[in-house]
């Protein structure tokens, strides 16, 4: 097979002068200019991760205050309205501003490296996605700091969210903020899908893709389908509140259940979007520490896709207590139960990988392996609420709070911590401290289970969610105190992680290119990687390019030191989606201020809409700025081959 591209690229090995030329082409300008204009996926990925962890810290502090309020009965640390805003903001922060963005950060950083490309498919869209995420997060937090944070739970049910019952700006901040954030999520998801299909190393056919990428792909595809649903719901709510429409107003023929349908059609797939990429991280990292390939790669990948597909058909299980017809609910109950099958397949494959491997007990391994236990606990409680009669008993109790925390911490926070220990050396060139890491893991693991395992019992004893305090002597006192103690221990564990990151950045052991002796392409380049990722674009002949000699793969050999040499401006290969055959040399865009300026314009639009009674012209100004930045963004560039050259 030969390349079907405009010019036949030359193959070879990279010389120092060649690397220097690539460095010059790909490096970001230093200083403030580079900060606002960079499109380097590695810088954007790390920014995503740092920003998400800042939001995690904020959400964590909110949780600790909530737990102080609930530690004992009849506490008055928080007033009811303060409590409502705090638990709603905690949910908003953790679910929307931490859980998905942190996964986007890892995927942004890792995808081109693990796929054997030099950047994401749309680098400027990547930058835009990040800036919009930051701006929408700030937008929603401004509301919170003004005393106008969301106060109706992260799911924001009507009619309480309607203006009649909820005057002020709380719901407007949240509604517009979610539409705002939805733009970031959507453009980021589109970028992942196209990158997955087109930007891979030659030879990386669809059956050889690193398992981690499948999780992010399915999450991204799902987000493209479901984010419009929630954006529409929030936009309709904003119209109801500000322009007299009646989408959700019963007295005028509106439908409160419409909100729940639109929200949960988004909400449940979103939960899977928060865990499947993290499960992909476990599937990628766990086998490395078991010193063997993942057991059942094909089954795990299919389970990932099947979980997401089935995940579109379970949203009504959030609405079992709304009076829907029995038979209609039973269909969703059936799917809510059967979705455990693909989840179980993944769990069995992970377990078999450990069982048949030779585990090396590092901190990363502990975080990855503990995910299995937490996933099973969260999965079993989810299975229980998938049954309609059980759900009627458990609905709106602390049992559900325990379930969601086992899912979101167990299958997001714990895998993310494992991923940090695993890929931190690649990102920084330094290893995180293992001794502190072990303390970090065990503190988090003990604290988490102390906080949330008893919470199941609290729920079974009847304690409802979303109450700011409770009377003494109804059997909840001790359990709540235990949960609060566990929450603080968990917080100490997270603090140890932050301390480890800082101290290791300063004085951690040098990592080298492949400190874990791992099999995938990102470990073939120096740590941290150069701006161009790969001096020569690798050729891939198996799923584990760096383990081929020991696995005795019989069908060709991958090459990471000799390959295509692309150095006419910023270039990388585009490949065919199924076979990974190069079919085009892509000209990648250079750094640009356009994504940042477009974000500034978009922010002005949303602020203008929020304060439309007084500041509507700001929305017009924002639209003009956004249009101008888009024009600059799309202006044809000679270096990208977008201009018609003069005939000779």
């Amino acid at each position, binding site marked *: 097979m030969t390349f079907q591209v405009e010019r036949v*690229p030359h193959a070879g090995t990279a010389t120092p002068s060649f690397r220097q030329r690539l460095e010059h082409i790909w490096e970001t300008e230093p200083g403030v200019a580079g900060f606002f204009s960079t499109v380097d996926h590695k810088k954007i990925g790390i920014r995503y991760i740092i920003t998400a962890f800042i939001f995690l810290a904020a959400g964590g502090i909110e949780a600790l205050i909530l737990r102080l309020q609930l530690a004992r009965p009849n506490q008055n640390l928080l007033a009811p309205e303060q409590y409502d805003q705090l638990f709603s903001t905690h949910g908003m922060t953790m679910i929307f501003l931490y859980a998905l963005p942190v996964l986007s950060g890892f995927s942004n950083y890792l995808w081109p490296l693990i796929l054997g490309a030099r950047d994401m498919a749309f680098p400027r869209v990547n930058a835009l996605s990040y800036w919009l995420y930051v701006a929408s997060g700030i937008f929603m937090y401004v509301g919170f700091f003004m005393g106008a944070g969301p106060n109706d739970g992260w799911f924001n049910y009507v009619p309480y969210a309607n203006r009649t019952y909820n005057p002020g700006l709380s719901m407007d901040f949240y509604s517009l903020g979610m539409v705002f954030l939805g733009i970031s999520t959507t453009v980021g998801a589109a970028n992942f899908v196209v990158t997955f299909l087109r930007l891979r190393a030659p030879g990386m056919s669809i059956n050889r893709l690193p398992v981690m990428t499948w999780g992010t792909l399915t999450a991204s595809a799902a987000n493209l389908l479901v984010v419009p649903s929630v954006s529409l719901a929030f936009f309709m709510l904003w119209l109801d509140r500000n322009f007299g429409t009646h989408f959700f107003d019963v007295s005028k023929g509106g439908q409160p259940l419409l909100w729940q349908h639109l929200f949960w059609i988004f909400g449940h797939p979103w939960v899977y979007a928060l865990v499947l990429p993290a499960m992909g991280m476990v599937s990628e990292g766990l086998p490395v520490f078991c010193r063997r390939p993942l057991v059942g790669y094909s089954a795990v990948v299919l389970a990932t896709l099947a979980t997401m597909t089935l995940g579109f058909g379970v949203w009504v299980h959030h609405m079992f207590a709304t009076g829907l017809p029995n038979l209609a609910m039973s269909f969703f109950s059936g799917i809510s139960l059967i979705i455990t099958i693909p989840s179980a397949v993944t769990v069995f494959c992970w377990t078999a990988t450990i069982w048949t491997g030779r585990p090396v007990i590092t901190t990363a391994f502990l975080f990855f392996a503990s995910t299995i236990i937490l996933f099973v606990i969260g999965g079993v409680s989810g299975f229980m609420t998938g049954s309609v009669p059980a759900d009627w008993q458990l609905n709106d109790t602390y049992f559900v709070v325990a379930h969601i925390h086992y899912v979101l911490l167990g299958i997001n926070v714990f895998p993310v911590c494992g991923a940090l220990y695993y890929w931190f050396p690649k990102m920084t060139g330094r290893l995180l401290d293992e001794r502190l890491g072990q303390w970090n893991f065990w503190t988090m693991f003990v604290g988490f289970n102390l906080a949330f395992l008893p919470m199941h019992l609290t729920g079974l004893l009847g304690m409802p969610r979303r109450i700011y305090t409770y009377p003494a002597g109804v059997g909840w006192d001790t359990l709540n105190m235990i949960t609060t103690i566990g929450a603080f221990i968990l917080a100490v564990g997270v603090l140890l992680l932050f301390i480890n990151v800082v101290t290791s950045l300063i004085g951690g052991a040098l990592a080298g290119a492949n400190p874990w002796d791992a099999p995938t392409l990102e470990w073939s380049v120096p740590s941290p990687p150069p701006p161009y990722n790969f001096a020569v674009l690798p050729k891939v002949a198996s799923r584990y390019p760096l383990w081929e000699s020991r696995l005795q793969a019989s069908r060709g050999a991958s090459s990471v030191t000799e390959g295509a040499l692309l150095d006419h401006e910023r270039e990388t290969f585009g490949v065919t989606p199924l076979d990974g055959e190069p079919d085009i040399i892509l000209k990648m865009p250079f750094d640009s201020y356009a994504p940042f300026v477009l974000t500034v314009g978009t922010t002005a639009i949303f602020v203008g809409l929020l304060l439309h009674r007084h500041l509507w012209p700001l929305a017009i100004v924002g639209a003009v700025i956004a249009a101008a930045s888009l024009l600059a963004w799309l202006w044809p560039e000679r270096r990208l081959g977008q201009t018609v050259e003069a005939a000779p």
Partner: protein
Amino acid sequence: MSDTPIRTQHPPPQHVAVPLLFFGLLIGPAAWSLQLVTNYALAAYRCYPDDMPRATILPNWHWSSPTILAINVIAAILALVGAAISVQNWRAARAEEGASISETLGEGVGRTAFLALWGIMTGLGFFAAIIFDTIALSMVPQCSG
């Protein structure tokens, strides 16, 4: 730096048409999706409140139960057809790529075999999901109260 054009042995020859491959892969989930949303709408309609003029919205509403059953049977058959086609695809792919099941699962030999294997699993898996929904017809009272 050399001037050798890059040549690889990848991919092996493909004798299974890509549309057929994807038909086998996707027909099961597609059938399941359609039966789920249709089931939900029809089942919910059976329980429309008595004071609402449902006949003006959907005449012949009393046929909803047999209709749900018929839709489920058709969907289940489609899922099985997807699995059967994928079995054929799998056999053809094995012949052309010489890959065993363990090679496909382990080394990742042959994207056609890989996708065909998926088709078998999705066909059978979504057949099971449709059967779950169908069982409910005989076990669950249609409306509350």
